[in-house]
Protein backbone atom coordinates (compact mmCIF):
# COMPACT_ATOMS: atom_id res chain seq x y z
CA UNK A 1 0.00 0.00 0.00
CA UNK A 2 1.26 3.47 -0.86
CA UNK A 3 2.52 5.43 2.14
CA UNK A 4 0.59 8.54 1.14
CA UNK A 5 -2.73 6.76 1.57
CA UNK A 6 -4.06 7.46 5.02
CA UNK A 7 -5.67 4.39 6.59
CA UNK A 8 -8.64 5.09 8.78
CA UNK A 9 -8.37 4.19 12.47
CA UNK A 10 -8.59 0.54 13.41
CA UNK A 11 -12.23 -0.26 13.89
CA UNK A 12 -12.06 -3.32 16.02
CA UNK A 13 -12.31 -1.47 19.30
CA UNK A 14 -15.11 0.78 18.10
CA UNK A 15 -17.12 -2.13 16.76
CA UNK A 16 -16.64 -4.11 19.92
CA UNK A 17 -18.19 -1.24 21.77
CA UNK A 18 -21.16 -1.38 19.42
CA UNK A 19 -21.86 -4.95 20.41
CA UNK A 20 -22.40 -3.76 23.92
CA UNK A 21 -24.97 -1.14 22.90
CA UNK A 22 -28.69 -1.87 23.46
CA UNK A 23 -30.70 -3.45 20.64
CA UNK A 24 -33.25 -0.64 20.56
CA UNK A 25 -32.15 2.80 19.42
CA UNK A 26 -33.60 6.17 18.43
CA UNK A 27 -33.16 6.90 14.73
CA UNK A 28 -32.28 10.26 13.20
CA UNK A 29 -36.00 10.78 12.50
CA UNK A 30 -36.77 10.26 16.19
CA UNK A 31 -38.30 6.84 15.83
CA UNK A 32 -37.53 3.71 17.76
CA UNK A 33 -35.40 1.41 15.64
CA UNK A 34 -33.54 -1.83 16.04
CA UNK A 35 -29.91 -2.53 15.46
CA UNK A 36 -29.37 -4.68 12.38
CA UNK A 37 -27.47 -7.94 12.76
CA UNK A 38 -23.86 -8.41 11.73
CA UNK A 39 -23.65 -10.97 8.93
CA UNK A 40 -21.64 -14.17 9.14
CA UNK A 41 -19.90 -15.81 6.18
CA UNK A 42 -18.18 -19.20 6.54
CA UNK A 43 -18.02 -18.61 10.28
CA UNK A 44 -16.44 -15.18 9.87
CA UNK A 45 -18.13 -12.05 11.13
CA UNK A 46 -18.49 -9.28 8.51
CA UNK A 47 -16.03 -7.17 10.50
CA UNK A 48 -13.40 -9.85 10.01
CA UNK A 49 -14.13 -9.99 6.28
CA UNK A 50 -13.87 -6.23 5.88
CA UNK A 51 -10.68 -6.20 7.94
CA UNK A 52 -8.93 -7.66 4.87
CA UNK A 53 -9.65 -4.41 3.02
CA UNK A 54 -9.36 -1.53 5.48
CA UNK A 55 -11.08 1.72 4.48
CA UNK A 56 -8.93 4.48 2.99
CA UNK A 57 -9.63 8.13 2.38
CA UNK A 58 -9.09 8.93 -1.31
CA UNK A 59 -10.06 11.32 -4.07
CA UNK A 60 -12.17 9.78 -6.80
CA UNK A 61 -12.20 10.67 -10.50
CA UNK A 62 -15.41 9.62 -12.15
CA UNK A 63 -16.24 9.80 -15.85
CA UNK A 64 -17.94 8.14 -18.79
CA UNK A 65 -16.76 7.40 -22.30
CA UNK A 66 -18.52 7.20 -25.61
CA UNK A 67 -16.93 3.86 -26.53
CA UNK A 68 -16.11 0.82 -24.43
CA UNK A 69 -13.10 1.41 -22.21
CA UNK A 70 -11.31 -0.23 -19.26
CA UNK A 71 -10.16 2.25 -16.62
CA UNK A 72 -7.39 -0.17 -15.55
CA UNK A 73 -5.55 0.86 -18.75
CA UNK A 74 -4.99 4.35 -17.38
CA UNK A 75 -3.64 3.26 -13.97
CA UNK A 76 0.06 2.99 -15.01
CA UNK A 77 -0.03 6.67 -16.03
CA UNK A 78 -1.24 7.61 -12.54
CA UNK A 79 1.54 5.84 -10.69
CA UNK A 80 1.27 3.68 -7.59
CA UNK A 81 -1.60 4.21 -5.19
CA UNK A 82 -4.24 4.47 -7.88
CA UNK A 83 -7.06 1.96 -7.92
CA UNK A 84 -9.91 1.22 -10.25
CA UNK A 85 -12.88 -1.03 -9.94
CA UNK A 86 -15.63 -1.88 -12.43
CA UNK A 87 -19.16 -0.81 -11.44
CA UNK A 88 -22.25 -2.30 -13.01
CA UNK A 89 -23.35 1.09 -14.37
CA UNK A 90 -20.48 0.93 -16.89
CA UNK A 91 -19.01 4.27 -15.81
CA UNK A 92 -15.35 4.61 -14.91
CA UNK A 93 -13.92 5.37 -11.47
CA UNK A 94 -10.35 5.80 -10.39
CA UNK A 95 -9.30 6.36 -6.76
CA UNK A 96 -6.09 8.23 -6.02
CA UNK A 97 -4.47 9.39 -2.76
CA UNK A 98 -6.22 12.25 -1.03
CA UNK A 99 -5.36 15.65 -2.48
CA UNK A 100 -4.30 14.28 -5.88
CA UNK A 101 -7.75 14.13 -7.48
CA UNK A 102 -7.51 17.22 -9.66
CA UNK A 103 -4.00 16.40 -10.84
CA UNK A 104 -5.17 12.88 -11.65
CA UNK A 105 -8.04 14.24 -13.68
CA UNK A 106 -5.65 16.19 -15.88
CA UNK A 107 -3.43 13.12 -16.30
CA UNK A 108 -6.45 11.02 -17.30
CA UNK A 109 -7.67 13.69 -19.70
CA UNK A 110 -4.25 13.85 -21.38
CA UNK A 111 -4.06 10.06 -21.52
CA UNK A 112 -7.50 9.89 -23.14
CA UNK A 113 -6.49 12.51 -25.72
CA UNK A 114 -3.33 10.61 -26.52
CA UNK A 115 -5.13 7.28 -26.89
CA UNK A 116 -8.08 8.65 -28.85
CA UNK A 117 -10.63 8.00 -26.10
CA UNK A 118 -13.45 10.53 -25.71
CA UNK A 119 -14.15 11.24 -22.01
CA UNK A 120 -17.55 12.59 -20.96
CA UNK A 121 -18.48 14.49 -17.80
CA UNK A 122 -15.22 13.94 -15.92
CA UNK A 123 -15.41 15.10 -12.31
CA UNK A 124 -13.49 14.80 -9.03
CA UNK A 125 -14.86 14.04 -5.59
CA UNK A 126 -12.57 14.68 -2.66
CA UNK A 127 -12.17 12.70 0.54
CA UNK A 128 -14.32 9.70 -0.25
CA UNK A 129 -14.05 6.34 1.48
CA UNK A 130 -12.56 3.52 -0.55
CA UNK A 131 -11.80 -0.12 0.21
CA UNK A 132 -9.68 -2.14 -2.18
CA UNK A 133 -12.03 -5.11 -2.04
CA UNK A 134 -9.75 -7.15 -4.29
CA UNK A 135 -7.74 -7.77 -1.11
CA UNK A 136 -10.59 -9.85 0.35
CA UNK A 137 -9.59 -13.48 -0.34
CA UNK A 138 -11.30 -16.71 -1.36
CA UNK A 139 -14.54 -15.39 -2.79
CA UNK A 140 -15.62 -14.16 0.63
CA UNK A 141 -16.90 -10.90 -0.80
CA UNK A 142 -19.50 -12.38 -3.21
CA UNK A 143 -20.74 -14.59 -0.38
CA UNK A 144 -21.03 -11.60 1.94
CA UNK A 145 -22.90 -9.63 -0.73
CA UNK A 146 -25.24 -12.58 -1.31
CA UNK A 147 -25.91 -12.81 2.43
CA UNK A 148 -26.62 -9.08 2.52
CA UNK A 149 -29.06 -9.36 -0.39
CA UNK A 150 -30.74 -12.33 1.32
CA UNK A 151 -31.30 -10.13 4.34
CA UNK A 152 -32.29 -6.94 2.49
CA UNK A 153 -34.50 -8.40 -0.24
CA UNK A 154 -37.48 -9.46 1.88
CA UNK A 155 -37.29 -6.19 3.83
CA UNK A 156 -37.37 -3.84 0.85
CA UNK A 157 -40.79 -4.53 -0.69
CA UNK A 158 -41.71 -0.88 -1.32
CA UNK A 159 -38.32 -0.18 -2.92
CA UNK A 160 -38.63 -3.20 -5.21
CA UNK A 161 -42.16 -2.20 -6.25
CA UNK A 162 -40.95 1.29 -7.11
CA UNK A 163 -38.09 -0.03 -9.22
CA UNK A 164 -40.48 -2.21 -11.25
CA UNK A 165 -43.06 0.55 -11.57
CA UNK A 166 -40.58 3.24 -12.59
CA UNK A 167 -38.36 1.43 -15.03
CA UNK A 168 -39.65 0.08 -18.28
CA UNK A 169 -38.67 -3.53 -19.11
CA UNK A 170 -37.73 -4.32 -15.48
CA UNK A 171 -39.77 -7.17 -14.05
CA UNK A 172 -40.02 -8.52 -10.50
CA UNK A 173 -37.67 -11.41 -11.20
CA UNK A 174 -34.93 -9.01 -12.36
CA UNK A 175 -34.79 -7.07 -9.10
CA UNK A 176 -32.84 -9.58 -7.02
CA UNK A 177 -29.91 -9.70 -9.43
CA UNK A 178 -30.05 -5.91 -9.79
CA UNK A 179 -29.90 -5.62 -6.02
CA UNK A 180 -26.85 -7.93 -5.93
CA UNK A 181 -25.05 -5.67 -8.40
CA UNK A 182 -26.10 -2.56 -6.51
CA UNK A 183 -24.76 -3.92 -3.22
CA UNK A 184 -21.58 -5.22 -4.90
CA UNK A 185 -20.97 -1.77 -6.41
CA UNK A 186 -21.32 -0.03 -3.06
CA UNK A 187 -19.02 -2.33 -1.07
CA UNK A 188 -15.99 -0.18 -1.79
CA UNK A 189 -17.52 2.91 -0.17
CA UNK A 190 -18.66 1.21 3.05
CA UNK A 191 -17.41 3.50 5.78
CA UNK A 192 -17.55 1.34 8.87
CA UNK A 193 -15.66 3.84 10.98
CA UNK A 194 -18.05 6.77 10.84
CA UNK A 195 -19.47 7.43 14.28
CA UNK A 196 -23.06 8.57 14.68
CA UNK A 197 -25.42 9.02 17.58
CA UNK A 198 -26.06 5.29 17.59
CA UNK A 199 -22.45 4.20 17.15
CA UNK A 200 -21.16 2.89 13.83
CA UNK A 201 -23.12 1.33 10.98
CA UNK A 202 -22.78 -2.30 10.07
CA UNK A 203 -22.96 -3.28 6.40
CA UNK A 204 -26.70 -4.11 6.33
CA UNK A 205 -27.58 -0.77 7.90
CA UNK A 206 -25.26 1.05 5.49
CA UNK A 207 -26.86 -0.65 2.48
CA UNK A 208 -30.37 -0.10 3.81
CA UNK A 209 -29.60 3.61 3.83
CA UNK A 210 -28.27 3.47 0.27
CA UNK A 211 -31.27 1.45 -0.96
CA UNK A 212 -33.67 4.22 0.04
CA UNK A 213 -32.51 6.33 -2.89
CA UNK A 214 -31.94 3.43 -5.27
CA UNK A 215 -35.20 3.76 -7.31
CA UNK A 216 -34.66 7.48 -7.64
CA UNK A 217 -31.03 7.05 -8.72
CA UNK A 218 -31.93 4.32 -11.19
CA UNK A 219 -34.73 6.44 -12.69
CA UNK A 220 -32.38 9.42 -12.96
CA UNK A 221 -29.79 7.31 -14.74
CA UNK A 222 -32.43 5.97 -17.12
CA UNK A 223 -34.55 9.02 -17.88
CA UNK A 224 -32.35 12.01 -17.10
CA UNK A 225 -31.73 14.09 -14.05
CA UNK A 226 -33.98 17.08 -14.85
CA UNK A 227 -37.28 15.30 -15.24
CA UNK A 228 -36.77 12.97 -12.27
CA UNK A 229 -35.65 15.79 -9.96
CA UNK A 230 -38.75 17.76 -10.92
CA UNK A 231 -40.92 14.75 -10.18
CA UNK A 232 -39.41 14.25 -6.75
CA UNK A 233 -39.72 17.97 -5.92
CA UNK A 234 -43.35 18.05 -7.07
CA UNK A 235 -44.25 14.99 -5.01
CA UNK A 236 -42.64 16.56 -1.95
CA UNK A 237 -44.57 19.80 -2.53
CA UNK A 238 -47.88 17.92 -2.92
CA UNK A 239 -47.20 15.90 0.24
CA UNK A 240 -46.17 18.99 2.21
CA UNK A 241 -49.35 20.90 1.36
CA UNK A 242 -51.53 17.85 2.03
CA UNK A 243 -49.89 17.26 5.41
CA UNK A 244 -49.79 20.83 6.67
CA UNK A 245 -52.87 22.46 5.13
CA UNK A 246 -55.09 19.40 4.56
CA UNK A 247 -55.92 20.31 0.98
CA UNK A 248 -54.64 19.49 -2.48
CA UNK A 249 -51.92 21.73 -3.80
CA UNK A 250 -52.58 24.44 -6.35
CA UNK A 251 -50.39 25.25 -9.31
CA UNK A 252 -49.20 28.34 -7.43
CA UNK A 253 -48.08 26.14 -4.49
CA UNK A 254 -46.18 23.78 -6.74
CA UNK A 255 -44.60 26.57 -8.76
CA UNK A 256 -43.43 28.21 -5.53
CA UNK A 257 -41.96 24.91 -4.33
CA UNK A 258 -39.99 24.55 -7.55
CA UNK A 259 -39.06 28.22 -7.54
CA UNK A 260 -40.44 28.76 -11.02
CA UNK A 261 -43.38 30.33 -12.86
CA UNK A 262 -46.74 28.63 -13.37
CA UNK A 263 -46.11 28.55 -17.11
CA UNK A 264 -42.82 26.75 -16.61
CA UNK A 265 -44.46 24.45 -14.05
CA UNK A 266 -47.06 23.41 -16.62
CA UNK A 267 -44.34 22.66 -19.15
CA UNK A 268 -42.46 20.52 -16.63
CA UNK A 269 -45.60 18.70 -15.49
CA UNK A 270 -46.42 17.96 -19.11
CA UNK A 271 -42.94 16.46 -19.57
CA UNK A 272 -43.42 14.24 -16.51
CA UNK A 273 -46.89 13.17 -17.66
CA UNK A 274 -45.56 12.30 -21.11
CA UNK A 275 -42.84 10.16 -19.60
CA UNK A 276 -45.32 8.50 -17.29
CA UNK A 277 -47.73 7.59 -20.08
CA UNK A 278 -44.87 6.27 -22.19
CA UNK A 279 -43.94 3.89 -19.42
CA UNK A 280 -47.46 2.85 -18.43
CA UNK A 281 -49.09 1.97 -21.71
CA UNK A 282 -52.56 0.54 -21.45
CA UNK A 283 -52.29 -3.15 -22.36
CA UNK A 284 -55.64 -3.06 -24.16
CA UNK A 285 -54.31 -0.48 -26.57
CA UNK A 286 -51.27 -2.60 -27.28
CA UNK A 287 -53.66 -5.42 -28.07
CA UNK A 288 -52.89 -9.06 -28.60
CA UNK A 289 -49.93 -8.40 -30.85
CA UNK A 290 -46.49 -8.35 -29.28
CA UNK A 291 -45.72 -4.91 -30.59
CA UNK A 292 -45.46 -1.78 -28.48
CA UNK A 293 -45.32 0.37 -31.57
CA UNK A 294 -48.34 2.65 -31.79
CA UNK A 295 -47.60 3.64 -35.35
CA UNK A 296 -48.24 0.26 -36.86
CA UNK A 297 -50.92 -2.36 -36.59
CA UNK A 298 -49.50 -5.85 -36.55
CA UNK A 299 -51.80 -8.80 -36.85
CA UNK A 300 -50.41 -12.07 -35.57
CA UNK A 301 -50.50 -15.02 -37.93
CA UNK A 302 -53.22 -16.91 -36.02
CA UNK A 303 -55.80 -14.14 -36.55
CA UNK A 304 -58.27 -14.90 -39.33
CA UNK A 305 -58.15 -11.52 -41.02
CA UNK A 306 -61.22 -12.15 -43.19
CA UNK A 307 -63.38 -13.25 -40.25
CA UNK A 308 -61.99 -10.38 -38.20
CA UNK A 309 -63.13 -7.90 -40.83
CA UNK A 310 -66.42 -9.45 -41.99
CA UNK A 311 -67.75 -11.01 -38.77
CA UNK A 312 -68.15 -7.70 -36.99
CA UNK A 313 -69.49 -6.10 -40.14
CA UNK A 314 -72.25 -8.71 -40.50
CA UNK A 315 -73.30 -8.41 -36.83
CA UNK A 316 -73.46 -4.66 -37.23
CA UNK A 317 -75.61 -4.97 -40.38
CA UNK A 318 -78.10 -7.24 -38.58
CA UNK A 319 -78.25 -4.78 -35.68
CA UNK A 320 -78.92 -1.90 -38.04
CA UNK A 321 -81.70 -3.86 -39.74
CA UNK A 322 -83.34 -4.73 -36.40
CA UNK A 323 -83.18 -1.11 -35.31
CA UNK A 324 -84.67 0.03 -38.60
CA UNK A 325 -87.58 -2.36 -37.96
CA UNK A 326 -88.30 -1.18 -34.42
CA UNK A 327 -87.61 2.52 -34.90
CA UNK A 328 -89.41 4.48 -37.58
CA UNK A 329 -88.99 8.20 -36.91
CA UNK A 330 -91.33 8.91 -39.86
CA UNK A 331 -94.32 7.64 -37.89
CA UNK A 332 -95.84 9.74 -35.15
CA UNK A 333 -96.55 9.04 -31.50
CA UNK A 334 -96.19 5.58 -30.00
CA UNK A 335 -96.02 3.87 -33.40
CA UNK A 336 -92.63 5.44 -34.09
CA UNK A 337 -90.80 3.12 -31.68
CA UNK A 338 -91.60 -0.48 -30.81
CA UNK A 339 -89.65 -1.39 -27.65
CA UNK A 340 -91.63 -4.59 -27.14
CA UNK A 341 -90.52 -5.91 -30.53
CA UNK A 342 -86.93 -5.00 -29.80
CA UNK A 343 -87.09 -6.74 -26.42
CA UNK A 344 -88.70 -9.86 -27.91
CA UNK A 345 -86.15 -10.10 -30.73
CA UNK A 346 -83.26 -9.47 -28.36
CA UNK A 347 -84.42 -12.20 -26.00
CA UNK A 348 -85.02 -14.62 -28.89
CA UNK A 349 -81.79 -14.18 -30.82
CA UNK A 350 -79.21 -12.74 -28.42
CA UNK A 351 -80.38 -14.34 -25.17
CA UNK A 352 -81.43 -17.60 -26.90
CA UNK A 353 -84.87 -17.93 -25.26
CA UNK A 354 -87.78 -19.88 -26.75
CA UNK A 355 -91.00 -18.04 -27.60
CA UNK A 356 -92.84 -19.19 -24.42
CA UNK A 357 -89.84 -18.11 -22.34
CA UNK A 358 -89.83 -14.73 -24.10
CA UNK A 359 -93.54 -14.30 -23.34
CA UNK A 360 -92.97 -15.21 -19.68
CA UNK A 361 -90.00 -12.89 -19.42
CA UNK A 362 -91.92 -9.95 -20.88
CA UNK A 363 -95.14 -10.87 -19.06
CA UNK A 364 -97.18 -10.95 -22.27
CA UNK A 365 -99.19 -13.63 -24.07
CA UNK A 366 -97.15 -15.95 -26.30
CA UNK A 367 -99.03 -14.81 -29.39
CA UNK A 368 -98.16 -11.18 -28.59
CA UNK A 369 -94.47 -12.07 -28.30
CA UNK A 370 -94.72 -14.12 -31.49
CA UNK A 371 -96.29 -11.26 -33.40
CA UNK A 372 -93.65 -8.82 -32.18
CA UNK A 373 -90.81 -11.06 -33.32
CA UNK A 374 -92.48 -11.75 -36.66
CA UNK A 375 -92.89 -8.01 -37.36
CA UNK A 376 -89.17 -7.50 -37.06
CA UNK A 377 -88.13 -10.67 -38.87
CA UNK A 378 -90.11 -9.77 -41.96
CA UNK A 379 -88.21 -6.54 -42.36
CA UNK A 380 -84.85 -8.06 -41.59
CA UNK A 381 -85.41 -10.82 -44.14
CA UNK A 382 -86.31 -8.10 -46.61
CA UNK A 383 -82.84 -6.67 -46.07
CA UNK A 384 -81.44 -10.05 -47.23
CA UNK A 385 -79.35 -10.55 -44.10
CA UNK A 386 -80.76 -13.82 -42.81
Amino acid at each position, binding site marked *: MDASLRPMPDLTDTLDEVVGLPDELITSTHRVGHRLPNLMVRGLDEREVFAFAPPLVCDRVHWDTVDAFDAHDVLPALGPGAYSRQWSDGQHRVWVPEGQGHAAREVIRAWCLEHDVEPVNMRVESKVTFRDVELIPDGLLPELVAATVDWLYPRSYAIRRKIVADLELIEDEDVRSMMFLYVYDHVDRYDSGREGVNGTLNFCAFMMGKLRTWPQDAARTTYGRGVMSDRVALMRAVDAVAATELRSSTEADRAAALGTSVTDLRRREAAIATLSSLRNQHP*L*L*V*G*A*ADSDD*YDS*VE*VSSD*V*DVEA*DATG*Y*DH*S*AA*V*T*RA*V*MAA*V*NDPGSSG*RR*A*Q*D*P*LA*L*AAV*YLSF*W*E*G*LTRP*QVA*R*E*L*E*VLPKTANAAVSRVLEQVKGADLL
Partner: protein
Amino acid sequence: MTQDHIDEYAGLRRQFEVGLRFAPTRMCAAAAAKSVASVLDAHPQVPARLVDLSHDGSRVLFTVSVCLGTIDAVKTAAPSSRRAIALLQELIDSFAAYDPAFVQLPVTREGRRASMVGVDLRDLLTVG
Protein backbone atom coordinates in the same frame (compact mmCIF):
# COMPACT_ATOMS: atom_id res chain seq x y z
CA MET B 1 -85.59 -18.79 -18.24
CA THR B 2 -86.40 -21.02 -15.27
CA GLN B 3 -88.97 -20.21 -12.64
CA ASP B 4 -86.20 -20.33 -10.02
CA HIS B 5 -84.34 -17.56 -11.77
CA ILE B 6 -87.44 -15.36 -12.01
CA ASP B 7 -88.03 -15.78 -8.30
CA GLU B 8 -84.74 -14.05 -7.63
CA TYR B 9 -86.38 -10.84 -8.82
CA ALA B 10 -89.43 -11.15 -6.55
CA GLY B 11 -90.40 -7.76 -5.21
CA LEU B 12 -88.08 -5.84 -7.56
CA ARG B 13 -89.15 -3.61 -10.45
CA ARG B 14 -87.34 -5.42 -13.19
CA GLN B 15 -85.51 -3.39 -15.78
CA PHE B 16 -84.91 -4.55 -19.32
CA GLU B 17 -81.43 -3.96 -20.67
CA VAL B 18 -79.84 -4.62 -24.05
CA GLY B 19 -76.11 -4.90 -24.71
CA LEU B 20 -74.55 -2.92 -27.55
CA ARG B 21 -70.96 -3.81 -28.37
CA PHE B 22 -68.51 -1.56 -30.19
CA ALA B 23 -65.49 -3.08 -31.90
CA PRO B 24 -62.99 -0.34 -32.81
CA THR B 25 -59.46 -1.26 -33.79
CA ARG B 26 -56.93 -0.71 -31.04
CA MET B 27 -55.64 2.40 -32.76
CA CYS B 28 -58.94 4.23 -32.33
CA ALA B 29 -60.21 2.54 -29.16
CA ALA B 30 -59.50 5.50 -26.92
CA ALA B 31 -61.22 7.93 -29.29
CA ALA B 32 -64.19 5.55 -29.63
CA ALA B 33 -64.60 5.20 -25.87
CA LYS B 34 -64.43 8.95 -25.35
CA SER B 35 -66.94 9.76 -28.08
CA VAL B 36 -69.39 7.05 -26.98
CA ALA B 37 -69.12 8.37 -23.43
CA SER B 38 -69.89 11.90 -24.62
CA VAL B 39 -73.06 10.71 -26.40
CA LEU B 40 -74.16 8.83 -23.27
CA ASP B 41 -73.46 11.96 -21.21
CA ALA B 42 -75.80 13.91 -23.46
CA HIS B 43 -78.68 11.56 -22.56
CA PRO B 44 -78.66 11.46 -18.75
CA GLN B 45 -82.30 10.37 -18.65
CA VAL B 46 -81.43 7.01 -20.25
CA PRO B 47 -79.56 4.68 -17.86
CA ALA B 48 -76.49 3.20 -19.56
CA ARG B 49 -73.28 1.64 -18.27
CA LEU B 50 -70.13 -0.11 -19.40
CA VAL B 51 -70.50 -3.84 -18.81
CA ASP B 52 -67.69 -5.57 -20.66
CA LEU B 53 -64.22 -4.82 -21.97
CA SER B 54 -61.95 -7.21 -23.83
CA HIS B 55 -60.01 -7.58 -27.07
CA ASP B 56 -60.11 -9.91 -30.01
CA GLY B 57 -57.36 -9.85 -32.63
CA SER B 58 -56.90 -6.28 -33.70
CA ARG B 59 -60.20 -5.15 -32.15
CA VAL B 60 -60.88 -3.72 -28.71
CA LEU B 61 -64.40 -4.74 -27.66
CA PHE B 62 -66.43 -2.74 -25.20
CA THR B 63 -70.07 -3.34 -24.43
CA VAL B 64 -72.52 -0.74 -23.19
CA SER B 65 -75.76 -1.76 -21.56
CA VAL B 66 -78.72 0.51 -22.38
CA CYS B 67 -81.79 0.23 -20.18
CA LEU B 68 -85.15 0.24 -22.00
CA GLY B 69 -86.98 0.78 -18.70
CA THR B 70 -89.24 -1.47 -16.67
CA ILE B 71 -91.06 -4.38 -18.27
CA ASP B 72 -94.26 -2.37 -18.06
CA ALA B 73 -92.59 0.60 -19.79
CA VAL B 74 -91.36 -1.71 -22.58
CA LYS B 75 -94.80 -3.26 -23.08
CA THR B 76 -96.58 0.08 -23.25
CA ALA B 77 -93.87 1.91 -25.26
CA ALA B 78 -93.57 4.49 -22.49
CA PRO B 79 -91.55 7.67 -23.17
CA SER B 80 -88.58 6.27 -21.21
CA SER B 81 -88.40 3.23 -23.51
CA ARG B 82 -88.77 5.34 -26.62
CA ARG B 83 -85.98 7.64 -25.47
CA ALA B 84 -83.77 4.57 -24.98
CA ILE B 85 -84.48 3.38 -28.52
CA ALA B 86 -83.66 6.85 -29.85
CA LEU B 87 -80.33 6.67 -28.00
CA LEU B 88 -79.59 3.22 -29.40
CA GLN B 89 -80.33 4.53 -32.90
CA GLU B 90 -78.03 7.49 -32.38
CA LEU B 91 -75.21 5.26 -31.12
CA ILE B 92 -75.62 2.88 -34.05
CA ASP B 93 -75.77 5.65 -36.62
CA SER B 94 -73.02 7.84 -35.18
CA PHE B 95 -70.54 5.05 -34.58
CA ALA B 96 -71.17 2.85 -37.59
CA ALA B 97 -67.40 2.82 -38.15
CA TYR B 98 -66.95 0.84 -34.93
CA ASP B 99 -69.40 -1.92 -36.01
CA PRO B 100 -71.93 -1.51 -33.18
CA ALA B 101 -73.90 -4.74 -32.67
CA PHE B 102 -76.28 -6.21 -30.14
CA VAL B 103 -74.69 -8.81 -27.87
CA GLN B 104 -75.78 -10.84 -24.92
CA LEU B 105 -75.07 -9.12 -21.63
CA PRO B 106 -72.26 -10.79 -19.69
CA VAL B 107 -74.22 -11.09 -16.44
CA THR B 108 -77.10 -12.74 -18.25
CA ARG B 109 -74.62 -15.07 -19.93
CA GLU B 110 -73.36 -16.18 -16.51
CA GLY B 111 -76.94 -16.61 -15.33
CA ARG B 112 -77.73 -18.81 -18.30
CA ARG B 113 -74.68 -20.99 -17.62
CA ALA B 114 -75.72 -21.26 -13.98
CA SER B 115 -79.23 -22.40 -14.85
CA MET B 116 -77.86 -24.92 -17.37
CA VAL B 117 -75.58 -26.58 -14.85
CA GLY B 118 -78.12 -26.22 -12.04
CA VAL B 119 -76.12 -24.12 -9.61
CA ASP B 120 -76.75 -20.82 -7.96
CA LEU B 121 -75.47 -17.82 -9.91
CA ARG B 122 -73.52 -16.50 -6.93
CA ASP B 123 -71.67 -19.83 -6.61
CA LEU B 124 -70.81 -19.76 -10.28
CA LEU B 125 -69.47 -16.23 -10.10
CA THR B 126 -67.41 -17.13 -7.04
CA VAL B 127 -65.92 -20.16 -8.75
CA GLY B 128 -65.50 -18.47 -12.11
